[in-house]
């Protein structure tokens, strides 16, 4: 299992599509930095194919005022959870 890490807003950058294309059926996707906007109910559709293995970093949601606004299906983890995700993955790939 590969942990994919995305840091660009899906409204501004098309890079999320490259990340999705590169994900295997068990791979996970973590949204950090500007990508956490993708956890909003209105934008989460971009990540429809990986719902259930879509994570967002709590600290980056909180600092942007987005913590209470996420779609229910997004798995919110804090930075400890981020480390755990890297422990559980064979390797990580960052998309920017």
């Amino acid at each position, binding site marked *: 299992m590969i942990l994919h*890490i995305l*840091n660009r807003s899906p409204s501004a950058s098309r890079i999320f599509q490259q990340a999705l294309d590169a994900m295997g059926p068990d791979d996970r996707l973590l949204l*950090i*930095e*500007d990508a956490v906007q993708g956890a909003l109910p209105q934008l989460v559709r971009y990540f429809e194919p990986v719902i259930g293995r879509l994570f967002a970093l709590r*600290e980056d949601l909180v600092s942007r005022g987005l913590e209470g606004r996420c779609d229910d299906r997004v798995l919110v983890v804090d*930075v*400890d959870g*981020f*480390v755990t995700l*890297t*422990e559980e993955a064979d*390797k*990580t*790939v*960052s998309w*920017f």
Partner: protein
Amino acid sequence: MRYALLVQGGPYSHQASHSALRFAQAVVARGHHLATVFFYHDGVYNAARLSAPPQDEPHLLDAWRRLNDEHGTELLVCIAAGLRRGLLDEREAARHGKQGHSLEAPFELTGLGQLIEAGSHHDRLVTFSP
């Protein structure tokens, strides 16, 4: 586990350096060994020794130094990326006939081979880019 980080974003311009530091602190707090941070692309600017951010902002340079101090994390700066961008230690400055230096210990100028070795020898490599 043994971790290596690859940092490619400049300090203050992008969140990459902040994200990497936060992740680094969580890695060591969970009992892992953060063996290496490798700075590449604009990440090399994290090593600029004269950095003087306002007092009410995080001092990234000091935070990197503290990782080295408290956890023995090696702070490696790609030499090719650094020279183009004006990051020279005393030895490289002398070699290029320049007065003064812009990078000093615990940051080390090294080749890309050290990144490749870090990727091979450690259990995890996590990249933070701008």
